[in-house]
């Protein structure tokens, strides 16, 4: 039996997308299974680990805990939307330079949380950076290099690189 699907439209990484979804699908499932954007990771699916973090209208959200329907008409940014013309975003570069990742599973979510923070507060204190990562769990590296990478990206990005 074909399940009931409903049409929605949203803007993903700057492009308008029209897609038929099931009401029970989450934004994470829409991104991964329908749009093939697998940078948002499937982690705990309990609104805790933050591996699925994306930006929704400029703020960080856990995409496992948003229904795709709730994203109707809104703007979504995933890790795939950060590099431009093959050039990594300053945050991505900083993560590479500082070795701010090991397995990499949490990295897209952490980078998007950091981008949401820096969009609102271009030169955050270390405490602010740490506060912004409360909803992103990294079980490999600890957060020292992650915080350093975000601080260094903040310096590079000042002056309108956003």
């Amino acid at each position, binding site marked *: 039996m074909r399940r009931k699907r409903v049409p929605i439209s949203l803007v993903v990484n700057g492009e308008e997308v029209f897609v038929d979804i099931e009401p*029970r699908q989450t934004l994470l499932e829409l991104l991964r299974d329908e749009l093939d954007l697998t940078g948002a990771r499937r982690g705990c699916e309990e609104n805790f680990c933050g591996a699925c973090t994306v930006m929704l209208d400029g703020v960080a959200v856990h995409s496992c805990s948003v229904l795709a329907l709730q994203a109707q008409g809104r703007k979504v940014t995933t890790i795939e939307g950060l590099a431009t013309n093959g050039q990594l975003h300053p945050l991505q570069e900083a993560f590479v330079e500082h070795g701010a990742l090991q397995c990499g599973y949490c990295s897209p979510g952490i980078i998007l949380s950091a981008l949401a923070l820096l969009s609102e507060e271009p030169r955050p204190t270390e405490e602010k950076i740490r506060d912004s990562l409360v909803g992103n769990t990294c079980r490999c590296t600890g957060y020292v290099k992650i915080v350093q990478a975000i601080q260094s990206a903040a310096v590079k990005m000042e002056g309108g690189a956003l």
Partner: protein
Amino acid sequence: MIEELEYLEPASAEEAAALLAEYGDESKIIAGGQTLIPMLWQRLVTPRYLISIKGIEGLGTIEKDRQGSLLIGACATHQSLEKSPAVREGWPLLAETLQKVAAPQIRNLGTLAGDLCHSDYGADPPASLLVLEARCRIVGPDGDRWLPVDNFFLELYGTALAPDEVLAQIEVPAVPDGAATAYVKYCLRAMDPAIVGVAVMLSMKDGRCQDARIALNGASPVPYRARLAEEALKGWPLNEAHVDEASRLAQEQAEPMSDSHASAEYRSRMISVFVKRALRAAEERARI
């Protein structure tokens, strides 16, 4: 995947209540979804109909009325409240409390009203709303009623809402002139619920406590006002003996539970520690 469901978008709170009346146990209200969606994943609830109130006009607003009360619509998010200049200026206790709720991602979508409706003992906002003596506007199929937040929480995960009622608005009266407030939370990881959360409002005059309000999260299956502790402080300076006595009374009133965050015994011991810290934090602010 979560179970199959239908997503309904009523145009008013009354219509939402009518849908609840029609579909009963098979339906759930959804606003921010930050508690509900994980519960759907875990099959803790399996509604066939989700009734979204997010699109209802006027439910997302945060405004001050003529009496100086704060009116919070059911769809106002933690983040919009925490960042609202009116809230920061007039109700710093609320802003301080909401900054301690879960994580930014959750605060960006989660709503204060949804937080209350879930009635989880480790949630942060209830104690502060008890101290602020907030009221709830509840909409049913036959109209509205107002209920003090003190009567809203009935049991763990259970509220005074009838199956066909919607929490539409929260009214927070102006903070009395000169009163100082504090919310102190104890948890192991920043994202966790409160093992103990204590909200305090203190009015001091000439070094003595004129009025004290104390409420606790995490300490019992439902949040509560520690009224005996409050009474024990009135008229006295906040010296060690009186603060000890108040914290003992607040602790005696608790019915602590054991969970994965803390045992009942540990929780019980932490109650008196954190009631003292909250009183000291508010007292310090009262001096400024």
